[in-house]
Structure formats: C-alpha cells, structure tokens
C-alpha cells in the first residue's frame, strides 16, 4: 500500500491542517447538512475531507463500499456502462466517465436515489449522499438537470460536488450549494505531514529533505507523499541533499526544454515532436505537458520575453481545449516559442 493511502486520515479529527474547516464540516455533519460544492487545487485534500465528513455523518458503515456496474440506456438506445462506488449510505459517481451522456446518468440515477427513502431505520441520517467527482467536467445539460432535483428531493438526497474550479459550474448550481474552499496546504504543513508519516513508518526523517520535497511538490500533498516514498524506496541512506527523482515524464519534459533552448531550427522541432508524441501516448494530459514545459522554459529566458511566452502558452492551452488533436497545439507552442526567442536574440545583436 502506498503511503498516500495508508496514512490517509479517516476522521475529521485526525486531519492535520485547515482545522477550522474541519470544525465547520463537523458542525454541518451534526446539524442540518446542506448540498456542498467542494473546490480546491489537486492534492489539497478535498476527497479525504469528504470521506471523513461522510464518516462523521453515518459512522463507520460508510467504509464498507462495493462497486456496482450499472447499464443505462440513452434515448438513442445506446447502452452505457457506468461504475458506481456505493455503501449503504452513499454513492460515489464520476459522470464525466460517460462523456456527453452524463445527463442520462444524472437524470436516471439521482432520481432513483432521490425517490427511495432510507431503508435502514438505524441510520443516523434520513438522506443519502451522492458524491459527484469532477463536477467541473459535467456538461451544461447535466448541470441543468441537477437544478430542480436538488430542491425537489432535498429530504432524501444531499449532493457533494467535487471540483478543481468553480468556473465551469453554472450559477444556478452555485446558488444552491454551500461553497467549501479547500486551499492547498502550506509548505510548513506539508513538512509536518511528511515528518509524521516518516515517524509512523519508522524512517530516518531529515528536516531539510522534507522541506525540499514540500517546495518541489508545489503545495500538492499527494505529490509530496509520493515523492517522499520514492526517495526512501530508491536510496538506502537518505541525507538532506539526496537528489529528488523527478517522475519520468517530468524528466522528459525538462529534456525537451533543454533541447529547445540549445538549438532553434525546424529540424529540432521534428525531434521534439517525437518526444511529445511519446508523452501523449503515455497518457500524460496535454495541458500538463504544456504547463510543465512552459514553467521549465521560463527560468531559462530573459525577463523581457517571459510575459510574451506566458501569453502564447495560455493561448495555445485554450486552443487545446477547443481543438481535438493536442499535438498541433503543443508543436505550435514550441514553434512560437522558438520564434519569440529568435526575435529577441536578433534584437540583441542589433543593439551591439
């Protein structure tokens, strides 16, 4: 078992940071529980908090989960297979799995849940909770379908929506839910967590190393824990200055960045393309590639063109979402970057 799963806090009390937020969730769970919209950057602990909240709501029964596979039929008679993680008290769904057909799932499934009352008389709450993962990827139709359902069936049903940002959640949903922001832990908080985990695993903990991991992880706790585990798995003796092994894909991206900086020619773009394809075939999301590449390139260039590079990076990132073949946009960014850099260097030459 990975450290991330092994040491995941199970109750609201054992959560280490954002204690104010934990208290609030606890107060909600013991009173009148509203619909929630939980948002925050990845690795901030949204899911962990929700699972702990569910436990607070229903007791240990929520931990007995099973995976159901359900088949839904769309209006055009297409069969959709859909996996549901469920306990007696709650359901967990990821409607974005079924792409454009998420509306069907939302309509059918939620209504079914909403129209049946809690059977278990010993249950602490009379409603069931439905956790919707990746709510920001729900289509407009699916979100519209949620609107009235949330009001109409509120005695039997509470929703918890998980999202990384609220930008794609339509206003009517936002006005029906309690927004809960889960900020990423600060560097110090990550260091504390790492030290705690190290202690429980009986590892020799180095303060300096923990700090470096925390900084490197970009305030993402999940990432920090994975890196922490990787360091201890790869080295027998761990010192403060033990190098942190970057993930393979990140190593490859920094290699790309170096190559781009070394030579500015069309031939180089061709070489880079092979590497980009390599990343894409390994299922690294194109947005991540573009973003990582940008932030690897930024320190290597002069301050005056940084703003321009960011501008184009954002531009092509937007295009990535609109288009459907990522490689074009990634390559276009590389080409654009080379052009910016070349123009800048040319200008420098003229100055002399």
């Amino acid at each position, binding site marked *: 078992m990975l450290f991330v799963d092994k040491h995941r806090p199970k109750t609201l009390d054992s959560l280490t940071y954002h204690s104010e937020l934990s208290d*609030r969730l606890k*107060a*909600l769970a*013991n*009173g*009148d*529980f*509203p619909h929630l919209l939980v*948002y*925050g*950057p990845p690795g*901030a602990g949204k899911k962990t908090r929700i699972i702990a909240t569910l436990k607070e709501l229903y007791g240990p029964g929520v931990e007995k989960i099973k995976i159901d596979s359900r088949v839904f039929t769309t*209006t055009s008679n297409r069969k959709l297979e859909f996996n549901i993680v469920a306990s007696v008290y709650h359901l967990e769904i990821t409607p974005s799995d079924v792409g454009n057909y998420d509306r069907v799932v*939302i*309509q059918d499934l*939620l*209504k079914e849940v909403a129209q049946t009352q809690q059977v278990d008389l010993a249950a602490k709450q*009379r409603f069931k909770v439905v956790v919707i993962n990746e709510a920001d990827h729900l289509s*407009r*139709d699916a979100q*519209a*379908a*949620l*609107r*009235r*359902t949330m*009001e*109409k069936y*509120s*005695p039997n049903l509470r929703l918890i929506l998980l999202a990384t*940002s*609220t*930008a*794609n959640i339509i*206003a009517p949903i*936002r*006005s*029906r839910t*309690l*927004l809960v*922001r*889960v900020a*990423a832990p600060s560097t110090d908080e990550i260091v504390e967590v790492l030290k705690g985990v190290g202690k429980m695993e009986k590892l020799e903990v180095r303060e300096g190393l923990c700090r470096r991991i925390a900084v490197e992880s*970009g*305030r993402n706790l999940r990432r920090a824990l994975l890196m922490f585990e990787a360091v201890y798995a790869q080295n027998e003796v761990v010192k403060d200055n033990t190098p942190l092994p970057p993930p393979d894909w990140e190593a490859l991206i920094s290699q790309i960045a170096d190559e781009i900086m070394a030579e500015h020619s069309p031939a180089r773009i061709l070489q880079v393309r092979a590497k980009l394809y390599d990343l894409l075939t390994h299922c690294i999301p194109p*947005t991540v590639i*573009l*973003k990582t590449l*940008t932030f690897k390139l*930024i320190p290597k260039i002069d*301050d005056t063109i*940084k*703003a321009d590079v*960011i*501008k184009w990076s*954002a531009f092509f*990132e*937007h295009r990535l*979402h*609109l288009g459907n073949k990522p490689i074009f946009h990634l390559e276009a960014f590389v080409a654009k970057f080379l052009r910016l850099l070349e123009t800048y260097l040319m200008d420098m030459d003229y100055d002399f």
Partner: protein
Amino acid sequence: MASNFFDLKKRKEAAAASSSSKQKAGQSQAADRPVPWVEKYRPKSLNDVTAQDHTISVLRRTLQSSNLPHMLFYGPPGTGKTSTILALAKELYGPELMKTRVLELNASDERGISIVREKVKNFAKIAISSTSAANASKYPCPPYKIIILDEADSMTQDAQSALRRTMETYSKITRFCLICNYVTRIIDPLASRCSKFRFKPLDEGNARLRLSSIAEAEGVKHQDGVIDTLIKVADGDLRKAITFLQSAARLHGAVVKEKTGDDMEVDGGAKGGEITVRSIEEIAGVIPEKTIDELMQSMEPRPHGQAVYTPVSTVVQDIVADGWSATQVLLQLYNRLVFSDMLNGDQKNRIVAIFSEIDKRLVDGADEHLVTLDMSLRVAAVLGDSGS
C-alpha cells in the same frame, strides 16, 4: 410528476387545518425535518412574492377573471419565477386539485421531442376533471390545466417547435407557462404565443426586508452589515442570499443540536455565535481585499528595466494554490480597475478587452493557473504603458 415535497406538506396541512393556521403547521413540521430555508420560505401565495409588483398585479387580475393567457416568465436566477407560478397554481386550484391539473416538467426530466409529442400532448388532451363542491367554493378552479415547463431555455429547438401547434390546438383546456433565464433562447414562434413577464433582479430594499425577516424568524444573530454584504454578493439573486445566510448560520454554530429521541432538533441559534461579514464573504468565495491588494501591488510598473514577471508569478501561484476561483479574481480585479482613477480611458479599454478574452477562456475550461498568470501579466503591461 407535479408533486414535490413542498406540495406534500401543503396537502397534509390543508387536510388538517384551514388556511389561517397553515403558516404555523408548516413551521412546526419543518422543525423536525430540516428543510433548506429557500424551500421553507418559498412564497406561499402571490402576495408573498417579493418585489415583482407589475407581474403580480397582472397575474392577480387574471386570477379574478379566471382567464389565463399562455405565459413566459424570464429573468435572472433567484428572482421568484418558479415560486410565482407555483403560488399561482395553488391559488387557482388549491392543493387537492393541483395534482391532476398541473404538470411540471423541468430540465431534470427527459424533455426530448418525443416527450413533448407524447407526454405533454397527452396531458394537454385530457378533458378537465370535475371538481368537488367543497374545493370549488374555496378556490376559483378555472376550467383549464396548466403545464409548467421550467428551465425552458435548455429545451432543444426541435422540442420547442413541436410545442407550437400543441399550444394552439388545446388552448381551450390547457395553458402553458414557460420559465427561462434567457428569453432569446426561446424560439420566436413560441415567444409570440405567450404573454411575457420579465422578472427583474430584486432591488436592495425588498431583498433587505425579506432577508431580515427570515433572519428574525430563524433567530439568527448577525453583525451589522451582514445583510448588506449578503445583498452585495448575491447580486439580486434572493435564493443565493438565503442559501448563504443559512450556510453562515450553520457554520457559526448558530445551529444548536438537542437530542430528543432519535430526532435532531434544529434550534434557531439563540445560543450560537454571531454571523460575521467575513464569513459571508468566505461562503460566497469572495477573495480577501488583502490578496487582491497584493496582486495589484505586484502588477504595479517597476522602476526602469525591471520586469514584473517574478513578483506577479509568485502572487498568482499562491492565489491558485489557495483555491480561489479564477472567475472571482477576474471579477474583483475588474471592479478595482474599471473604477480606478489612476487609469485613463484608453488603458481601461484595453484592460476590459483582456478581461473579456480571459473570461471566454475560463468558460471554455482553460487551465486556471496559466490563464490567471497571463491576465495579470497583460494587465501589468497595460498599467505600465499609459499610452501617452
């Protein structure tokens, strides 16, 4: 289909008591089963609907003449569209008859063209059921049915055009009420068959009145200025304001639990703490002024030769890691810059152009970090160049 929890409650009440004691019955029932305040304080009659004077007076007149046109309600969310039609239907038919006379369809129901053709048409066709004498004496019970199509702007064009003829053919025994946010999404032929009612965003006075009365009824303690903040962040959306108020009341321990048998009793919060302005802002996702100040400061033009990249990127990174939504950053920055005296018209023009583009990107689902960084850097560039 038309039954919801609210109606159930109403029906039980009506069976038990006459109209005068309704309010109390509703509240005592709500106490043993927590209900969102939005539902609890949903207007129960046309008179209770806040601030839509014009619409209400027109509807009231039709109520007297018992002749209703097809209706199209439109307006921003949280202005009382659904509440109005439900209240109207209740006044027309009374809770008993409402079951058979009203069909409510919304976006959570399947509303493809086939549904319009079958379900709506079949319901429209049904002859009017007779009403009991007791009911008829209490309510007008006009001889037609009402079909409510909530969130009609999310219906497809085809489904909408399938309605056209249906509306006319059965107009003797059926009235339609379409409800939508954007009247432009309703196809013209449908819109021209309906009399339109615009629901305007609630003005401050009415919203304040309503919120204070709810706060009082629930016994919520709050600091001065909380109601003002609620009105400000809700932007004319009363539902949002009420939801925020309730959430804040819960968060602040204004909800006191008392165990009586198995039931959790919800207390109005006489013993809990006060709601603060900041907690309302936190619930609404408003970014603290300090963070925006930091961002503004980092974007200030530097002395010659220094680029703004490093300070801006640090601040942006923190904002993103703290989970503030980029749309909110955009909104608050917009409010700051557009009303700023330090900028000339030309600069404001350029900044607004940037904002519009960024907003589009966010809606398309672009990465928040990159987009926010891009926006900040471009705005910083504009700030640095006064265009003289």
